[in-house]
């Protein structure tokens, strides 16, 4: 899973250690999340989103990159 944690953390002026401290995990956890190696638990994802002032679905992007918000009904053609 890809994430925008690094981008939003930098924009917020936080170091990895700052963010780790605020969400109560180790700094290595933040590094692994930013590298896309470690998928956080749902509670951690919500804590990260809250600290980075965003939404979970804007913070993490699944690798299959499907957009669940876009639904095309069978009687509608894609535009």
């Amino acid at each position, binding site marked *: 899973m890809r994430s925008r944690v690094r981008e939003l953390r930098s924009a917020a002026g936080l170091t990895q250690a700052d963010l780790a401290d605020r*969400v109560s995990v180790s700094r290595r956890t933040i590094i*692994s999340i930013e590298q896309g*190696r*470690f998928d956080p638990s749902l509670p951690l994802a919500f804590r990260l989103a809250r600290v980075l002032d965003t939404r979970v679905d804007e913070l993490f992007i699944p690798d299959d990159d499907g957009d669940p918000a876009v639904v095309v009904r069978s009687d509608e053609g894609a535009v």
Partner: protein
Amino acid sequence: MLSRVTRTLVTTTVVLVTVGGLLGVLVGDDAPADALDGVLVGLAVAVAVGVHLLVRSAAGRGVEASAPESAEDSVERRVWVAASSAAFVDAVSVLVLVVLLGLWSDGEWSRWLPLAGLAAVLVDLGVRVRRGWREQVGGA
């Protein structure tokens, strides 16, 4: 917390020593001597349980227990939990194998079976932790 551990330990010791003594009388031919053997076995098991409880208690009270690496959502904790869960299943299989080999073997070497089993389980755990670490964290 220490008093709770102590209470558990005292209760466990009394129960194990009593059960050991009763089993010694019921199973053995020489009642007083077998009862004493049973009590000693019960005491040995109680000592093992006591060491286990004290180590767990010490780990829970140690500095590491409150460190961020021990937090539920930290990658270190997740790697450890995943590795130990997988190793537990393997450990049960190794235990069954050790028991079966122990039942069918009558050689002197059979006394080394538990040690070999323990070594296999520890190596398995180490390999799984290392593999999980490389996947989730990277590096060596």
